[in-house]
């Protein structure tokens, strides 16, 4: 994979119940860009993110991660390059201890145990959770769980980081730590969020979604000052 970009070409996705969540989504996020994905609940943000990792496959259209089209055959390659952080850390943390959970991804990549150990230590240190190493994930606070979930993704050393609402339900201190962590990640980043302040602070570019379509795509400061677009997306009161 020569370039770590994300490309969607006219992607449609319909859930088995018949609900069309994505209706012709197209965009290109180039290597090293940090992009915010804004929109109301149900706008299609999470569905879009699940396509970047091949968890959901487009009903029609094409998703490319770098030079690799996302298909069932390319999933191992795609998933080793894309780190996907889920909205609810409880869905992500399921191993008996924090270190086992952070090591889950690297072990699935069949890395030698020394390399797994190095990645676990580095990832936990990056999120400031080294002291939680032997703890059980179920007994952690919401902020700690989020940090450990991020460590689990960072341990895979992804070239592209995709995050679903990384600052939701966090206290101000934990929210600030997440923001600083993402700021330090110098690869491609796509963040779905309602946190407009975080989008303004971290992401030079934003895309706005409404009813399964991207209705605006441009510099974040322009998007956030475009009341008409924000109102259309339901992010500004009518």
């Amino acid at each position, binding site marked *: 994979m020569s370039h770590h970009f994300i490309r969607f070409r006219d992607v449609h996705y319909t859930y088995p119940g018949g609900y069309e969540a994505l209706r012709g989504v197209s965009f290109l996020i180039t290597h090293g860009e940090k992009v915010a994905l804004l929109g109301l609940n149900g706008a299609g943000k999470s569905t879009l993110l*699940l396509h970047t*990792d091949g*968890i959901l496959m487009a009903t029609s259209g094409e998703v490319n991660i770098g030079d690799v089209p996302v298909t069932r055959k390319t999933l*191992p390659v795609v*998933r*080793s390059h894309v780190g*996907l952080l*889920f909205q*609810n850390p409880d*869905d*992500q943390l*399921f*191993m*008996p*201890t924090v270190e*086992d959970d952070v*090591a*889950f*991804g690297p*072990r*699935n*990549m*069949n890395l030698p*145990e020394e390399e797994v150990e190095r990645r676990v230590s580095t990832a936990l240190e990056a999120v400031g959770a080294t002291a939680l190493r032997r703890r*059980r994930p*179920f*007994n952690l606070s919401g902020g700690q769980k989020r940090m450990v979930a991020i460590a*689990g*993704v960072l341990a*895979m050393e992804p070239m592209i980081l995709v995050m679903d609402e990384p600052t939701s339900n966090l206290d101000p201190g934990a929210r600030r730590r997440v923001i600083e962590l993402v700021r330090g990640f110098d690869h491609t980043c796509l963040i779905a969020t309602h946190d407009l302040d975080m989008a303004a602070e971290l992401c030079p570019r934003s895309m706005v979604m409404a009813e399964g379509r991207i209705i605006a795509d441009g510099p974040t400061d322009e998007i956030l000052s475009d009341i008409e677009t924000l109102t259309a997306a339901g992010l500004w009161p009518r």
Partner: protein
Amino acid sequence: MSDRLQRAILTLNRLEQPGGGTDGTDIIAAPDSRCLLVLTLIYLVLMLSVPLADIERVLLFSVYPIVESALVGIKYTRLLKRSLWVLPLVALVGVFNPILDTRTVFTVYGFTVTAGWVSLISLIVRGLLAMQAVLILIYVIGFYEVAVAIRRLGCPAVMSTQILLVYRYLSVLLQQVLTMRRAVDARGYGRRHMSLKLWGIFIGQLLIRSLERAENVSRAMHARGFTDRLPLSRYRCWTTTDSVLLGSWTVVFIVIYLVPLGTYLSKVL
């Protein structure tokens, strides 16, 4: 009910890590997970193979949970209390034995003890001992390590993965029940029981939500490269202590199984 559910979830979560079932007591000598799994299997096979009427021999098998719990630092009284969970099930299996089998076995102070009663008591003791052996296994090495041990013993990976996932989803299901029960209690105005209609809705919703939650967990696993095979974590190597532990207990079990120690003891006493 919420408190009991909360306790059940905590207990389940504790069982997931080695030594987690001992309520804070450190495991003194945790053997290799394969050693303890094989030891437990040998114990179960030999103990459960003893004829129902041979209650003395079954009682002699209680030496393993008593001694092994002391060796690893678990209070036997706690083990005994937890093993009582299985009592209703085994009692149900043998509840008709005293009625169906009325042959006299012996008489004590004028009371006739029938073969049916002996087999019922034997069934209960076996059930408790089997449960205690399994609890020692899970308390000492944790549920995750049991699944890893199954894999390391050469069983198909799909088997150990399925066992671990069933256990994992049990915890997900309990958490969902707790959340929904709290929602019901919050607007129940002190009413403790739910109507039949509400139970129907509750169970239907529980099924839908659990499936949704399970799907999210599955997605999160696959996003981190899970390929339906449980990755093996760091594990202890087999040591001489493990061989000694397995060998010595196996000899004890075989002696109890083959030699009529009960008869000798009754003669001596």
